[in-house]
């Protein structure tokens, strides 16, 4: 690329030269708060990953791939990013890449950012779109040539998306990037589905009609590297509802026939590409970098000259000015930044330690990410923890996996932080008042001064501790409704078991469908009745309409009047159970049922008129009691309720009570026995009441 440019310059053909410049757009904002509270002082792009700011990995990748002009799109903490870029090595005169930060604080999504870019018309040709948290070592040149060649032939091939091959269970496979991609043999993407939380992938039939061969792949990870044609920004402008790349992908695929735009994919197998999207990814990518999977993006190449990391055995990296006391052990995959001190008999494995940290004696660190200027006193122990800048741990602090301690938090002495604790210096009230704590840090600094107004919970952070438990805000914008994933909490294992149990259920159902005859009409009728009732209750429809609906269903499914009465009663009994996950207790059931019966009284009156129908109703009750224990317990009250509502008469109840069990099945009769003992007090009361009224009459 660079050679080309020079040649063109020689000819003095400025237009050609412009076209030949390869541009890239880096979105240095994640547009979500997944890393809160760590993002309160620093944008995600400036997080240290193995002691080097994240965005440096991205920029290094782009520059070494031959990109000549990079626009870094900054939103939150833009001043920090700007400062960082100006100070970076790419800003030197002899750098063959121009990096321009673009500040736009009112952007809230990728879509906004690209629309802004289109408005400023900075893009002249095909460009590379990446996010500012990308670590990759792939070569772009061939891919861009491919993309351009394809675009030349077919102007509708607007984007080439880069995927990294990663089998299910791969370490850098993020939970939310669980995708199934369908392509044809030319690598055109036909379908792109997020599978997170779904059991099944769906493919519309017309895909199979149009394509004689397709490949469905679940072994891919979206690297969020996109080679875009200039038309992409236009697409975002045209469709102002596109918020992020997923929207664009979905939009292009859905409107393919109308707009004719096509997506292509490129799969990398050997090269590395991954994004730091959440804490588990931060963890796994850090390890990949330490273990040199992303070569040449390794610690000794990335950091400034003076630091000079030296690689020892077992992937232990030490900066030039590290003090290791006697008896300290660095087991494997450890990197220690400039000016840090490790105390006597301290054991460290698979951890990153930043600059100017002081670690005391007898400390055990595993899978721990320690940023700069952290002080850890003696006898502390932790694994799977992130400690941000200036954190201080007093003597004998134990931190269980999955904790994050934000900037300047102090903990201890002699206290244990339970698994998954998030601590920040800002009192909770202020944290909540501004959900988007990423928006600006000035606000946060202000609240900083108010520290001390809110008392610190000493039970959590210890006697001399400073910091508050941070509650992740309920984030309605989070596209998959997923809460922040905590570091080290192994969510995926749980997922697995859940998945398999669901699957077997699912399987059972399939069997059921294939073996049994189609569901009979009464069953369908019953379902219909329940649906109608639910609608009636929820939408407050007139009861006459419900009766009408039930009547019409009766004809539709050819149900006899008797069955209808029984099924309607059962449906009413079923209603309270529908919306709850756990089985209801009798005490909980009763109030719900009471309100329900009162509401539906006209329906009962409509169908239950004579003794015969009352008996049907009672039999239905009994039947239902076999199935539900709670109902059995509540049966006397239900009977009383219906009796008082004049739905059931004494006569019918007594007749039902005295009638023999119709079937000879011992289990059935045992059940009946149980019911009879249950309702005995009620019957007794009923008989007495009858006698009373009789005697009154006699008087």
């Amino acid at each position, binding site marked *: 690329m660079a050679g080309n440019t020079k040649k063109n310059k020689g000819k003095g053909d400025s237009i050609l030269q412009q076209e030949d410049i390869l541009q890239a757009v880096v979105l240095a904002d994640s547009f979500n708060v997944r890393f809160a509270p760590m993002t309160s002082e620093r944008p995600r792009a400036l997080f240290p990953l193995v002691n080097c700011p994240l965005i440096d990995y991205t920029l290094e990748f782009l520059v070494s791939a031959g990109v000549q002009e990079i626009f870094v799109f900054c939103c939150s903490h833009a001043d920090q990013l700007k400062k960082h870029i100006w100070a970076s090595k790419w800003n030197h005169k002899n750098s063959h890449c121009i990096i321009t930060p673009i500040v736009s604080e009112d952007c809230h999504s990728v879509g906004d950012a690209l629309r802004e870019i289109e408005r400023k018309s900075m893009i002249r040709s095909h460009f590379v779109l990446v996010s500012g948290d990308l670590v990759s070592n792939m070569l772009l040149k061939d891919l861009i040539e491919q993309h351009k060649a394809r675009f030349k032939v077919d102007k509708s091939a607007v984007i080439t998306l880069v995927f990294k091959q990663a*089998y299910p269970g791969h370490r850098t496979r993020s939970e939310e990037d669980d995708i199934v991609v369908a392509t044809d043999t030319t690598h055109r993407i036909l379908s792109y589905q997020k599978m997170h939380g779904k059991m099944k992938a769906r493919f519309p039939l017309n895909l199979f*009609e149009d394509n004689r061969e*397709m490949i469905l*792949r679940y072994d891919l990870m979206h690297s969020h590297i996109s080679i875009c044609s200039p038309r992409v920004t236009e697409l975002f402008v045209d469709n102002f509802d596109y918020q992020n790349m997923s929207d664009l992908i979905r939009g292009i695929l859905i409107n393919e026939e109308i707009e004719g735009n096509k997506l292509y994919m490129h799969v990398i197998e050997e090269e590395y590409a991954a994004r730091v999207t959440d804490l588990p990814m931060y963890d796994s990518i850090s390890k990949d970098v330490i273990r040199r999977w992303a070569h040449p993006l390794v610690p000794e190449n990335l950091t400034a000259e003076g630091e000079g990391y030296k690689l020892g055995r077992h992937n232990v990296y030490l900066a030039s000015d590290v003090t290791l006391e006697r008896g300290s052990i660095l087991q494997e995959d450890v990197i220690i930044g400039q000016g840090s001190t490790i105390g006597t008999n301290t054991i460290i494995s698979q951890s990153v330690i930043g600059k100017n940290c002081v670690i005391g004696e007898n400390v055990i660190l595993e899978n721990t990410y320690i940023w700069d200027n952290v002080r850890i006193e003696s006898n502390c122990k932790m694994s799977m923890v992130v400690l941000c800048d200036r954190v201080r741990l007093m003597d004998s602090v134990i931190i269980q996996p999955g904790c994050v301690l934000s900037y300047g938090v102090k903990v201890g002495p002699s206290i244990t932080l339970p698994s998954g604790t998030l601590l920040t210096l800002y009192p909770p009230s202020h944290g909540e008042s501004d959900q988007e704590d990423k928006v600006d840090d000035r606000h946060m600094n202000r609240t900083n001064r108010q520290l001390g107004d809110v008392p610190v919970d000493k039970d959590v952070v210890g006697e001399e501790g400073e910091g508050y438990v941070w509650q992740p805000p309920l984030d309605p914008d989070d596209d998959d409704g997923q809460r922040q994933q905590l570091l080290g909490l192994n969510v995926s294992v749980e997922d697995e078991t859940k998945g398999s149990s669901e699957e077997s259920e699912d399987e059972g159902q399939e069997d059921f469908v294939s073996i049994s005859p189609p569901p009979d009409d009464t069953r369908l009728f019953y379902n219909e009745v329940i649906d109608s009732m639910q609608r009636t209750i929820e939408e407050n429809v007139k009861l006459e309409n419900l009766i009408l609906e039930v009547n019409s269903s009766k004809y539709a499914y050819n149900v006899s009047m008797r069955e209808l009465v029984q099924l309607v009663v059962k449906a009413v009994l079923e209603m309270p159970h529908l919306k709850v996950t756990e089985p209801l207790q009798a005490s909980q059931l009763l109030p719900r049922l009471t309100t329900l019966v009162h509401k539906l009284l006209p329906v009962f009156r409509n169908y239950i008129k004579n003794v015969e129908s009352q008996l049907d109703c009672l039999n239905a009750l009994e039947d239902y009691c076999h199935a539900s224990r709670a109902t059995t317990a509540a049966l006397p009250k239900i009977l009383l309720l219906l009796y008082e509502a004049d739905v059931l008469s004494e006569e019918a109840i007594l007749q039902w009570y005295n009638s023999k069990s119709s079937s000879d099945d011992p289990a059935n009769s045992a059940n009946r026995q149980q019911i009879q003992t249950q309702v005995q007090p009620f019957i007794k009361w009923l008989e007495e009441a009858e006698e009373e009224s009789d005697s009154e009459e006699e008087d």
Partner: protein
Amino acid sequence: MEYQAVIMAGGRGSRMPDLTASVPKALLPVGNRPLVWYPVNMLDKAGFESVIIVTFDSVKRDLVQALQSSAGELLIRLEVVTIPSDEDWGTAESLRFIRDKIKTDVLVISCDLITDIELHLLADVHRTYDASVTVLMHTLPDQSTEGGIYVPGSKSKRKIEQRDIIGLDEKGGRILLLAAQADIEEDLTLRKSVFKRYPFIQVKTRLMDAHMYILKKWVLDFLADNKVGRTYSTIKGELIPYLVRKQFSRPKTGQLVPQPNSMEPEGAQQDKDIASYGGLDELTKTARTMSSWNEHMGDMSDYYQHGDTLRCHTHIMENGFCIRANTVAAYCEANRQITQHRQILGDDPLIHPTATIKTKSQVGQDSMLGEGTTVCEKVSIKRSIIGKHCTVGDKVKIINSVIMDHVNISEGCTIQGSIVCGNTHIGEGVEMKDCLVGSSQNVPPRAKYSSEVIGNADRMMEI
């Protein structure tokens, strides 16, 4: 004997009623041989010693006669099993019917399959993967090349047949998904658990199931004993899709380990899960426990690690000749192509030695003349097959047609793209194009037909 072979010749040919009205499907001539001869010959060449042919009561005698007369050189022992003529049994039903005769894994072939596949290719797949069922698939040629073909006796052009959607694993050997396009309403759904095990699935829609299967013995047991299996009537439509689907379901707990040596009554066994059918026999189990063989290595590790006993594999014929003569169009196509694949027909010359061709007549290299047929003067025959004891009059032109036995074509006729069934007399100067003439018809002189069915009027509506 590793495999027993079964040929399913009990089909009605319901997709080509005009042709099968007079001749049973198994005996329709292709290249002057009955259709059923092709699978029999293939098995014979492959070294099978015997074959079971399932056919109707009424067809048995003709079938045996036809096979014996048309190919005296066959060494294979024919065992013809008849099913009642008034039943319309599917392939699975027929298989269940002959279950007692099956002692080993079974190779099932439909009688309408004409192919030059070397059978060991299919058997190799079956052996390599120890598959429960191995299916022969054939890549269909591109639709575009055959788009303009007229079907004899039909006004409409050839319809695009409903295809199957077939999902294969990365290597293209294992069938992961099988669905008929017609059965899917809107979306094809695939469970995530399948993706987890097979993250790379190739989906092909241009494969044709050649109706040649190798089934494990236990699949037959399943068909006969299991309460689900007993409801199935066809192999293609029901059994194979079920087996493919069941590959990814785990057996219900409790049924996983069939209790050894328990004297269960027959009734209790019928509810066995399909997974328990495919279990290893005692000998194999002992052999495995006593040997140092490690099942978790190499090509098969995937299967054993997941403990799946049910495996559906396929061999795909990318090229080579494979055609199923189950529709009128496919029947014509088979006749057209058969002369180009002489290796299937054996060493017999295309023009029978007893056929007489008079002077100034031209019979193309791609045409066949049957025994005792007489071709008169100035006749031109191209890309056509003419049966036994036919008489072709002077100045007749026959192009792209199939003429069955004992047909008498008077002088000056032009017959193009048509099928003429046996014992028919065609009068002078008749011109027909893309027609289907029923058997024992008398076509009046100087008539002109185009895309019509002549004779068997009552059946005309069905096409």
